[in-house]
């Protein structure tokens, strides 16, 4: 393995003539780049010695007089007499152009200095240069002046070490008054240290006294971590791949981050190939191929990750370093910074592809994160394309409008136009008959039903429906969305009071919230309030909007026959009515929380323990105390941990399997919920009556409870039952159950209807609910839906 490195290994290619005449031909320029190039050239020689395995320390010193020293602990340049040249090999290396061990593949397998031209050029362009060689126990020295030896190689002493030390001062005749830039040198040394983890680099600047050491055992992995240090990595573990084939060593490290830019550094024999080349092409091809293969084949990957990636998708947020070492690199391109060897592409591609597949297989969670990241990039690319398509095709938009789905109105002024988004075809039909066609337009939307499993169905807004909605509004979508262009100033969602209706409404609200936020912010989105109940008493019909209205109606009827006694006091009739309404309000607020997965008992524990504001969760000790209360009531309680909603606060998970699986988070977010505030409001109003025995006389019937809250539902149901006597109550499930004139009177007529304006907060809540309903298939969520799905039929916004 160790070849003799003597004078015969040095081949002479040509002399130094012309270097001083045309320096730019050899070092690119005589500006700062060329000036520093001199140092890189010398440094590369030292690194080559390290690559060959003979050196592990390299020291660079920037001297006060403008000269620089590069010192290594390698074998030392040979000093014996060169067979063809008749002078020492050192002198040949230092004074003959294109002379050096690197041109003889047997001495160095790979080398970095090749993009340069050999240290002889540095010598030719230096005012003076001193080469000192420690080799075979002796110290040799030779001085040169502008490339010309001042004398033969001298032996100046004895040594224990080996190595080469080159000190040179760039010639001011060539470069003018330039200095080595500490930051530039430092940057290159750090880069070399990342690329060559086996080598320690030392830098000293005698002008400023600065001194640094660079040594990164982690190599490329550490390089990538360094590049990503100010970013948020998508996956923790850096992907590292290495392999060797046909004397070519390939090393790659990569890690995705949350940003959009690509950071890619590619090196060939330590040379930064800024223009890329065949190694980079091979790498990119392998990356796209491997990730596509993974997405197509990995088990348990959600369907929405099955996407075909394009090259640009895998580049976004990529931070990668490629380093290859090879004999005979061919550099092309304007600045000779591009690798041209065509055999390298397939070689790098196959090593990277295999390595990446192995990594993805062995690191499933990192793989999943990477997949999610690149799929998002693909999705964004797709969405931008589709949005442009939808927005651009004016003709198609018109087609949608004339295809009969949208029932247009006559009015042209957007301020006066109303668009009803009506769920279902039959309801759409009666809405079309009921409307005032002068200013009310109707777009029926039904959602699309997908049968994915026997036991359940999935509901989506079809892409066709979204296109129709976008076309009807005329305000574009995606990057082109412009609320000012909306053809309607009132957009009214009108859905049935059933599960289907609730789902379409949730989907639509979520869609508007996310993609047409400004429509909501401007107050243009409404929800129609069709009556929920029709109450028939003899010949009289009454329409009631919701449960609260129905309760008020029933309580009025029942009140004459109800006596409510709290403690020792019998409440007068108006007070009884108020108490009943507050109880009903509390019941509604609790059941709304239950729909969101929080059982009434849990809520009442919080209220009674005084956890009524977010900052009440700041006291860790109190929160721990609270977990004890939950535990005593038979709930399983998770660890108390810092809250994700409020920095200073704590939270914990509570799980119960009583009466259906329930799991919810108890923390500072809860008291901020609207429903929770409602609970508090009603609870506060009822407070003066609590803690006292309750006696309710309903006609003949008398019931006794410990307290109003513990009797909550039975008290209410007794009163309701009485109030209901002699009534026929119809609960509308669908708009289609109303005839057109009823629908007009109760819901659409601007003179009589009430509309609920959607606030951003409402839509945000719908989004939250939507997220709970659609999120990835996680078992607890499924059980949650099964337990509470019945409640969703009354979903409010």
């Amino acid at each position, binding site marked *: 393995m160790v070849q003799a490195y003597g004078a015969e290994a040095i081949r002479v290619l040509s002399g130094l003539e012309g270097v001083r005449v045309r320096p730019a031909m050899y070092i690119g320029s005589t500006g700062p780049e060329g000036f520093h190039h001199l140092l890189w050239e010398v440094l590369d020689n030292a690194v080559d010695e390290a690559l060959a395995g003979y050196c592990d320390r390299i020291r660079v010193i920037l001297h006060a007089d403008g000269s620089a020293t590069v010192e290594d602990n390698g074998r030392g340049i040979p000093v014996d007499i060169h067979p063809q040249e008749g002078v020492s090999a050192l002198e040949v290396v230092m004074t003959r152009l294109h002379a050096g061990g690197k041109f003889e593949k047997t001495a160095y397998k790979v080398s970095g200095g090749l993009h340069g031209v050999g240290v002889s050029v540095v010598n030719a362009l230096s005012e003076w240069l001193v080469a000192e060689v420690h080799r075979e126990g002796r110290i040799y020295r030779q001085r040169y002046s502008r490339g010309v030896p001042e004398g033969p190689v001298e032996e100046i002493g004895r040594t224990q070490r080996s190595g080469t030390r080159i000190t040179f001062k760039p010639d001011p005749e060539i470069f003018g008054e330039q200095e080595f830039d500490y930051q530039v040198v430092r940057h290159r040394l750090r880069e070399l240290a990342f690329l060559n983890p086996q080598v320690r680099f030392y830098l000293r600047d005698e002008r400023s006294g600065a001194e640094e050491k660079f040594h990164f055992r982690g190599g490329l992995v550490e390089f990538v971590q360094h590049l990503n240090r100010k970013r948020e990595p998508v996956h923790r573990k850096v992907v590292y791949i290495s392999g060797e084939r046909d004397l070519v060593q390939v090393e790659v490290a990569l890690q995705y981050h*949350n940003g*959009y830019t690509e950071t890619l550094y590619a090196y060939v024999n330590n040379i930064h190939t800024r223009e890329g080349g065949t190694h980079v092409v091979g790498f990119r091809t392998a990356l796209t191929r491997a990730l596509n293969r993974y997405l197509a084949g990995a088990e348990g990957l959600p*369907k*929405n990750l099955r996407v075909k990636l394009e090259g640009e998708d895998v580049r976004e947020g990529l931070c990668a370093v490629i380093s290859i070492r090879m004999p005979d690199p061919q550099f092309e391109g304007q600045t000779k910074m591009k690798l041209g060897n065509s055999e390298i592409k397939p070689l790098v591609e196959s090593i990277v592809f295999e390595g990446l597949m192995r990594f993805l297989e062995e690191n499933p969670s990192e793989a999943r994160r990477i997949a999610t990241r690149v799929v*998002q*990039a693909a*999705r*964004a*690319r*797709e*969405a*931008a394309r*589709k*949005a442009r398509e939808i927005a651009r095709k004016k003709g198609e938009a018109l087609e949608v409008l004339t295809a009969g789905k949208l029932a247009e109105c006559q009015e042209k002024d957007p301020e006066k136009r109303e668009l009803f988004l009506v769920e279902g075809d039959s309801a759409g039909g009666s809405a079309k008959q009921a409307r005032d066609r002068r200013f009310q337009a109707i777009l029926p939307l039904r959602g*699309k039903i*997908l049968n994915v499993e026997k*036991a*359940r*169905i*999935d*509901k*989506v*807004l079809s*892409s066709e429906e*979204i296109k129709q909605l976008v076309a009807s509004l005329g305000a574009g*979508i*995606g*990057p082109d969305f412009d609320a000012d262009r909306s053809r309607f100033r009132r957009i009214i969602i009108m859905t049935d009071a059933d*599960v289907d209706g609730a*789902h379409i409404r949730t*989907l639509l609200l*979520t*869609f508007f*919230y*996310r*993609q047409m*936020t400004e429509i909501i912010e401007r107050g243009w989105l409404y929800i129609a309030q069709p009556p929920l109940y029709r109450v028939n008493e003899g010949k009289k019909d009454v329409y009631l909007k919701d*449960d609260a209205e*129905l309760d008020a109606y029933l309580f009025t009827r029942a009140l004459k026959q109800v006596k409510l006694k709290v403690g020792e006091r019998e409440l007068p009739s108006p007070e009884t009515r108020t108490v009943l309404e507050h109880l009903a309000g509390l019941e509604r607020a609790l059941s709304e929380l239950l729909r969101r997965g929080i059982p009434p008992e849990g809520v009442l524990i919080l209220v009674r323990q005084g956890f009524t504001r977010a900052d009440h969760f700041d006291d860790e000790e109190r929160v721990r105390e609270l977990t004890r209360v939950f535990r005593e009531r038979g709930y399983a309680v998770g660890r108390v941990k810092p809250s994700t909603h409020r920095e200073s606060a704590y939270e914990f998970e509570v799980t119960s399997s009583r009466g259906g699986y329930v799991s919810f988070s108890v923390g500072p977010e809860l008291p901020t919920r609207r429903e929770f505030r409602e609970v508090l409001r009603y609870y506060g109003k009822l407070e003066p009556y609590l803690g006292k025995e309750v006696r309710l006389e309903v006609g003949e019937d008398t019931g006794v409870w410990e307290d109003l809250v513990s009797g909550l539902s039975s008290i209410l149901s007794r009163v*309701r039952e009485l109030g*209901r006597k002699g*009534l*026929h*109550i*119809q*609960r509308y*499930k669908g708009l289609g159950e109303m005839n057109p004139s009823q629908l007009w009177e109760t819901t659409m007529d601007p003179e009589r209807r009430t509309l609920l304006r959607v606030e*951003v*907060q409402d839509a*945000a809540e719908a*989004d939250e609910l*939507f997220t709970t*309903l*659609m999120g990835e298939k996680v078992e607890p969520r499924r059980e949650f*839906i*099964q337990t509470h*799905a*019945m409640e*969703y*039929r009354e979903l409010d916004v």
Partner: protein
Amino acid sequence: MAGKLTRCPVCGKPVSWEENPYRPFCSRRCKLVDLDLWLSEEYRISVPREVLEDETEEVEGGKV
């Protein structure tokens, strides 16, 4: 929502509402990803079939 921090529906990062043209998302990117999910019909609400079947029964009088 003024001054309120929400979370980006796509990536979960905290999002400021003010002066954020991509609200409620953190970035153009996430907003586009979301749009693509809508247009490829990936956003689904999943319902147990029996819930829908229960709906067909007539509900007489009062609360369900």
